[in-house]
């Protein structure tokens, strides 16, 4: 762990922050510190590179646009996933396409693992709260707090399990030479994934028939800005 620049103390901080981010998503206080752009920036900052963290978070944010938490929908859990992905990229040195791509992939996978743990948590909540009316209604406050505590522990455990393995994996990939076909292949994967995510996001958020035109106009305006400013 010392080669990654991660002490046991820093790992513990990551776990505590991961627990807080997991709690924020649905339980409390829902101020959206659990969004990837915030979580990954915090993860990156803890490992010394907030900018790399934000970039990972921005890509995860675009990938998550198609997942809105309507009703009982299942969607990737972004807090611990963003934190670990941002920390993973920052621990690798923060530069290079390979590490960026791998950090994003890890963040996406951890997000879905987190979603599975959230589903399990919601089943446990059912046992805690759903039968309460017939049993002991006055114990509601205690059981509600217990459900939130389990949520925080769940998110902390998720962060604890993935933080160091992801950092090691991203660090290993950062040491690989990106010669031959690797660079264009990795570039294509990342760009196509971002473009697909943008299209999915616009469709899911609505906007009617003019939405694709507005999407194109926004993209064209950004491209023009890049051309003008270099």
């Amino acid at each position, binding site marked *: 762990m010392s080669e990654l620049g991660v002490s046991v103390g820093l790992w513990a901080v990551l776990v505590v922050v991961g627990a807080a981010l997991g709690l924020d998503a649905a339980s409390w206080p*829902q*101020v*959206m510190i659990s969004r990837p*752009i*915030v979580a990954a920036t915090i993860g990156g*900052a803890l490992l010394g590179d*907030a900018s790399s963290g934000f*970039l990972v978070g*921005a890509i995860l944010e*675009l990938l998550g646009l*198609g997942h809105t*938490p*309507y*009703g009982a929908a299942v969607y990737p859990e972004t807090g611990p996933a963003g934190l670990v992905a941002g920390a993973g990229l920052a621990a690798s040195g923060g530069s*290079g*396409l*390979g590490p*960026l791509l791998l950090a*994003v*992939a890890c963040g996406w*996978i951890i997000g879905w693992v987190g979603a599975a743990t959230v589903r399990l948590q*919601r*089943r446990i909540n059912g046992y*805690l*709260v759903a039968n309460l009316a017939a049993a002991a*209604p*006055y114990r509601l406050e205690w059981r*509600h707090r217990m*459900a939130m505590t389990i*949520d925080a522990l769940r998110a902390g455990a998720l962060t604890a399990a993935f933080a160091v393995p992801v950092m090691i994996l991203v660090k290993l*990939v950062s040491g*690989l030479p990106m010669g031959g076909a*690797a660079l264009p292949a*990795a*570039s294509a994967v*990342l*760009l*196509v*994934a*971002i*473009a*697909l*995510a*943008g*299209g*999915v*996001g*616009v469709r899911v*958020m609505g*906007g*009617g028939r*003019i939405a*694709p035109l*507005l999407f*194109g106009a*926004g*993209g064209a*305006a*950004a491209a023009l800005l*890049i051309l003008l400013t270099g």
Partner: protein
Amino acid sequence: MQGSWNYRTLVAGGLTNAMLPLLRRIYAGDPVRLAAAVSRHLEPFNAHPYLCAMAVTALARLEATGVSPERIMRFRTALRAPLGAVGDELVWAGWRPFCALLAIVLFTLEGSPWVATLFFLLLYNVGHVYLRGWAFRRGWSAGFDVGKALQEAPWNGATHWLTVLNASLVGAAVVLVAWSTPATTLLRWEVVLALVAAAAVGYARPGLGERVAATLLIAAPVVLLFLGG
């Protein structure tokens, strides 16, 4: 509010937990009626978590004014759809992506992750806290007239404009984020056209688009390991 969200009673545990201080006051000295009120509000309920504050105070007002449990439960059932649909459309599909996309654009233009992150958190939570506060106050004053209060809500025109702005912001964010990555070495006109086609596939077939994007990202480490040397 969603701390004990579950598949059987949905957000009812959080709703009742939030109502408890009011219910204890309304039924002070009458533990039987308090228990009955707690039991009926633990029946399944769901709504957007921010607008649940409106259900909390509207239902508490009905409890306080002695409305019959049957009417309260009918009203409670009727609240679910509007409080869910309005909140989901306004916050999850409108305000949250709007704030996040603006922050991403700000980061790519300005370069500071902390400025962008704090901008996102401040802007989002101004709307968030305002909405919770409005819902809490209007729920109590509206009582049975929650539907009318929602129709006259000050943000009603904003939902449409947020959707329109978000579509443009997604386009800008996709281009600016792609430009911020080391992958820009690949950017040529034919590649740009391919990316436009990818975005079109994502829009036309969102399910397929997401599966393809996820498969590409997860396969990426394998691509790197095999082609890296």
